[in-house]
């Protein structure tokens, strides 16, 4: 559904769209009003060049503009860049900036700032693959920047969008250790549609309309109040009573079930395809007996995934089938979906030489799970019960807090774990990391903690990462998905059931018209009353 972006960027999206880039809305938006947004976490700062994560990303994309923005069909559109062009050899990207764009302090946004931002991201951002092939950024003139690449890098457009590619002013953030710059959270100078009015650490953020924003007439809202509300019950009441207009990343089934009943609220799963959150069961493939792929596959067959989704998520979540999120342009459903099959599971374990003993036990193992949220605990209990049926005796290992879990899993000191991992737009950014054999790094979370090694998968990902032809690239990823699912370092269960909940009586043009959802600029959003 592409309601707001009327211009098709056309085919492979390599050609930059025209200067006519202001998205048009169907209804007649109104100027003014305050949007109250609630979220369970509030970030410590909003400098998205040095940190990822949605608590930073949601406010950061309001206060900082990126070069490109995306609609909900994975089509890139001009944003801070008036146009851009990837060279035919794929080894450089020319970016032409808007000439009317200024930072919140009035300084013009120039190619120097683009070069500085990209260099900062490359040096500091956790997602190293985003700009890894960037060798340098040259600035032939004030409004032209050329990004030079050591190899073709199709992921670069996504890396230039939303919170991944925000443009920050060099004259503010260029001095000293950027990680400790106090202006990451106070007296912030941004490039986006809203400027920071007030930030109370741990409480709320007030962002106000930036009058000199480079898109004429935008944003519509006077301000956005972003409040932290960590209690689920409080969020429910705030939405029900109209004290809050919008709440992103809601995934608690009880919360969703209850709020679905409110007439003035809309619950939508749209706007999460770029983040691409997947829930899965991961194996330590170096530990016995999980070094045998038949054992991993057997567990895949033994888990009744549809039943789990129904019990755990009250029907709000959708099945995930492979390493790429179903919302992605590179998703392929042509994989083994491990339909629930106990006989097959037992046969595979027999073949692997794991016969049941007198008590019917084939082997004993442990299962870790991410702390936080009752769903994970219940999920682990159901898994234990299901695996018991094929003779696997599972001991559940709860972690007292997030860091203890990271320590265990990233330290490769686990048998199996339940995990939630994001795709982050392009497979090069969020997918490769889980399967590349070169990315096994002890102590670092969300790398290849499964320690999965497969030369064919490595080769195909490398090829796909360099392929600028969209159709060919899709074909490569389809192959990759099939292979990874077959090898089963991970059993995919479901998409995290993230929903954006908003009051449709008040909120016009809700921020679900982009693959980035609420982590995209809300210059379109308006208040109806």
């Amino acid at each position: 559904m592409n309601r707001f972006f009327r211009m098709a960027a056309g085919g492979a999206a390599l050609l930059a769209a025209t200067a006519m880039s202001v998205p048009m809305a169907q209804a007649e938006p109104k100027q003014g009003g305050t949007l109250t947004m609630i979220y369970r976490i509030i970030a410590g700062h909003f400098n998205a060049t040095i940190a990822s994560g949605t608590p930073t990303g949601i406010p950061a994309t309001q206060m900082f503009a990126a070069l490109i923005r995306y609609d909900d069909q994975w089509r890139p559109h001009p944003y801070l860049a008036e146009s851009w062009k990837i060279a035919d050899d794929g080894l450089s990207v020319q970016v032409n900036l808007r000439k009317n764009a200024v930072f919140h302090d009035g300084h013009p946004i120039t190619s120097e700032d683009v070069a500085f931002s990209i260099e900062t991201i490359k040096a500091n951002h956790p997602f190293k693959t985003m700009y890894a092939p960037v060798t340098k950024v040259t600035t032939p003139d004030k409004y032209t920047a050329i990004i030079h690449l050591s190899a073709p890098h199709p992921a670069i457009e996504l890396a230039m969008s939303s919170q991944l590619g925000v443009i920050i002013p060099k004259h503010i953030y260029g001095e000293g250790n950027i990680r400790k710059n106090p202006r990451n959270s106070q007296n912030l100078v941004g490039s986006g549609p809203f400027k920071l009015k007030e930030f109370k650490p741990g409480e709320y953020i007030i962002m106000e309309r930036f009058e000199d924003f480079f898109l004429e007439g935008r944003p519509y809202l006077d301000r956005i109040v972003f409040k932290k509300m960590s209690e689920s019950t409080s969020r429910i009441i705030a939405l029900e009573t109209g004290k809050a207009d919008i709440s992103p990343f809601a995934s608690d089934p009880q919360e969703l079930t209850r709020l679905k009943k409110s007439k003035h609220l809309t619950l939508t799963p749209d706007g999460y395809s770029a983040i691409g959150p997947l829930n899965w069961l991961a194996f330590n493939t170096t530990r016995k007996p999980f070094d045998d792929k038949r054992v991993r596959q057997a567990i895949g067959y033994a888990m009744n995934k549809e039943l789990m989704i129904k019990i755990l998520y009250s029907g709000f979540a959708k099945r995930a089938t492979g390493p790429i999120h179903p919302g992605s342009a590179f998703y392929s459903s042509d994989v083994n979906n491990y339909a629930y099959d106990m006989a097959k599971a037992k046969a595979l374990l027999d073949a692997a030489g794991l016969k049941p003993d007198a008590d019917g036990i084939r082997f004993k193992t442990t299962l870790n799970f991410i702390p936080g949220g009752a769903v994970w605990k219940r999920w682990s209990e159901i898994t234990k019960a299901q695996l018991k049926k094929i003779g696997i005796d599972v001991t559940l290992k709860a972690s007292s807090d997030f860091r203890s879990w990271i320590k265990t899993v990233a330290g490769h000191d686990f048998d199996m774990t339940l995990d939630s991992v994001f795709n982050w737009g392009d497979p090069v950014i969020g997918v490769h990391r889980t399967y590349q054999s070169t990315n096994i790094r002890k102590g670092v979370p969300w790398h290849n903690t499964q320690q999965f090694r497969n030369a064919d998968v490595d080769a195909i990902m490398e090829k796909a990462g360099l392929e600028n032809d969209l159709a060919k690239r899709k074909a490569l990823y389809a192959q990759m998905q099939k292979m990874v699912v077959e090898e089963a370092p991970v059993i995919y269960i479901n998409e995290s059931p993230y929903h954006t909940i908003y009051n449709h009586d008040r909120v016009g043009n809700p921020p679900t018209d982009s693959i980035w959802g609420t982590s995209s600029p809300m210059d379109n959003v308006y208040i109806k009353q």
Partner: protein
Amino acid sequence: MQFLTVVIRRSLYAFLLLLAVIVFNYTLLSMVPGDIAETIAGESGGASAELMAEIRRSYGLDQPFYVQLFGYVGRVLQGDLGSSYYFNVPVLDLILGRLGPTLLLVITALLLAIFTGTLFGVIAAQRPNGIFSHFITILALIGFSAPVFWTAFLLIILFVSMVQIMPLSGLADPLTESGTWQWYLDVAHHLILPVVSLSSIYLAQYSRLARASMMDILGSDYIRTARAKGLGQRVIIYKHALRNAVIPVITIAGLQFSHIFSGAVVIETVFSWPGLGTLAFESILRGDTPTIMGILFFSAFVVIVFNLLTDLAYRIVDPRIRHSGTA
């Protein structure tokens, strides 16, 4: 003179105790698995090993433990509690910013509980088997046994969701300009539900305590003497008996101050009240060691100071302790 010696001696003990607390806390926290680099990596959806090493280096976490410990103690003695890893602002600023709302919440709740509790207790003590006394006993039982978050949510459902007359959360509406009279009114409005919820536990305690202590005193010799002298009931109760009956109440109130952070955490979380309790709780989850250390130090400081003050308050109220010099 003797009084002054006691004060000085106790202050010295307090200082040594505080120093021990810092060392102990720091040692304990350093044993917790995981650190800020992992938290940043966790929140960011991953980080490279080089970046994690860089973060550790920039926060001095690559140094040996004893170097970190001595460095920390030295800085604290100079009044520098360090900077929060998460918010990147001085811990002291963070604590002072949160102290106001917490004190406002806790002191208001405590005062409400002490005054109404004592009043209820005193009234009930005069007719221990009367209806009012039973009513208080039941009220105390419910208040004390109901979990405080339950009471809070009940109040929220009643006064925010059903009868929509109360605000849901926060210290005030973020859009009200702070410092104006509208803002003070707004804060007062936002304060009602958290204070009532929080005082419900204390109220129960104080009314029971005051009732028991009052009944005890009403049976004592000097009250009988006062009655024999022909003094009126009102004078006996409020001038002679009450003064003695509040001693245990003061003791408990002083001790209660050490619970201010723990007791208020739940209420602060439920009402998104920007207090120290939530800051402490969330800092622990975030692995923000300087902030946790700062709050622990601060709460130890508060507890020690209030114990001192309670002790002094005793001496002023109760002449026997004042003259004995010890206790």
